């Protein structure tokens, strides 16, 4: 039987890999045969995630992506150790909730740097000659916030919308190099970040009222990411795929 999605011998870089959607994606891809390169800030959690992976040839890299200047060097190091990249999944991101009156330029810039700037810089460096294999597929994690407004999420929503727009341009620009780019657009997903959010809101989440399939699991998003990374989606580029339990259509 032909397997629709296989990552045998494929090298996949995942940022924000030590928890939530990133961690679940790493586990899934390792089960599908990938060599996974994990990148995150917390070494203990990276080691823990490495222990959850299936197969061999995985590596982890400790790096804080808010340090934009050193990304180019880090990518070189990653490729030297892990091999040329066949797939890149960007799960790094910070949730920012702040009312407009407290939304200083400094805070907006911080959110944009981490959620958007580091993503563009990573893509810029990964798509340099010698760092990737033909057929490279890049998947970013966006958010329903990019398309639906909510109070207090101005900077976060802006950063995710920027990611989606960048992907529309880059898919066109990088097509001649046989590189595809897409994003997944999750709604509320059962992750440690979501637990924190729920706690802040006293256990109330109004978004779920419109998300009629209920709370999503990290695995649901990981499955969508795996599909967009794989050659099964080789004719799909420049899109933002909702994984939202119906939110955006309700």
């Amino acid at each position, binding site marked *: 039987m032909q397997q629709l999605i296989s990552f045998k011998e494929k090298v996949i870089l995942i940022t924000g890999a030590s928890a939530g959607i990133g961690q679940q994606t790493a586990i899934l891809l390792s089960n599908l045969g990938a060599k996974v390169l994990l990148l995150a800030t917390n070494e203990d959690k990276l080691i823990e995630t490495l222990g959850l992976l299936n197969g061999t040839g995985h590596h982890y890299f400790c790096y804080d992506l808010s340090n934009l200047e050193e990304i180019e060097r880090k990518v070189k190091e990653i490729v030297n150790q892990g091999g040329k990249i066949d797939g890149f999944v960007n799960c790094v991101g910070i949730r920012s909730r702040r009312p*407009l009156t407290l939304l200083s330029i400094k805070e907006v810039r911080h959110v944009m740097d981490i959620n958007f700037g580091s993503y563009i810089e990573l893509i810029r460096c990964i798509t340099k000659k010698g760092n990737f294999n033909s057929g490279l597929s890049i998947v970013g994690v966006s958010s329903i916030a990019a398309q639906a*407004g909510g109070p207090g999420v101005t900077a976060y*929503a802006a950063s995710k919308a*920027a990611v989606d727009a*960048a992907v529309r*341009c880059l898919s066109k*620009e990088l097509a001649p190099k046989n590189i595809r780019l897409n994003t997944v657009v999750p709604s509320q997903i059962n992750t440690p970040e979501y637990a924190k959010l729920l706690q802040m809101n006293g256990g109330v989440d109004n978004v779920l009222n419109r998300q009629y399939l209920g709370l999503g699991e990290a695995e649901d998003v990981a499955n969508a990411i795996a599909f967009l990374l794989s050659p099964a989606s080789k004719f799909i580029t420049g899109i933002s795929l909702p994984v939202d339990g119906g939110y955006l259509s309700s």
Partner: protein
Amino acid sequence: MILNPMDLTNKKILVVGATSETGETITNQLLNLGAEVVMLDDNEERLITIADKCHNPRLNFNCIDIYNNQEIESGMKQIAASFGAFDGMVFCAGKGGVRPLQLTKNNFLHDMMNANLYSFIEVVRCLTKKGSFNNGGSIVVISSVSSIKGLKSKVSYSASKAALDASVRGMAAELSEKKIRVNSILKGWVTSDMKLDFIQDNMELNKNEDFARQLLGVIEPIEIANTVGFLLSDATKTITGISLLHDGGYSL
């Protein structure tokens, strides 16, 4: 008597980035619709020229550099002190730029975001403080169809405009408590844009696929000014958080 649903009489409107051709046209049209207008820009010479040309007692101006984040808060305070609370604001400042990915480094990204996103958020944040903006007021920002359509070498411009539109939705939700509305206009190619270098570069890069897509042809600045007037007026008092396409059919 014919009632004009876009009448802006007794409304005080701040036009940010007023010295561009589109900004000047917007200023003129808002005056025609009866508004009191305060122009804001960093180019004092142009501000004086426009004010002299209009020669209208309902027109004032103030000079601050809105791309300098340090200046915005004190500048807006000063404006509120001089002119009182506003009923509307149009943000038509911003930058363009064409650059392939390999040359899109963080400094370039930051400049683009600063001009098209950070300045807007900071102006709105300061303007909507108590006493500077009336409840029921309307905020309009000029975005671009690039926000929803991708083109080669426009990654930073597109991203900045998409971020801008998303911030509009966030602010609209939040400021609805004060009945303040926030909307953007996704403009297509406007005649005044055509004189800009970055558009010339863009035409070279995206030959054949771009201008032909704007089915109704190139837009005149006055048409954008009319759409701005519409969104500022009470004719749209229950429209908020939208990005209104004014693109001559480009996105079809």
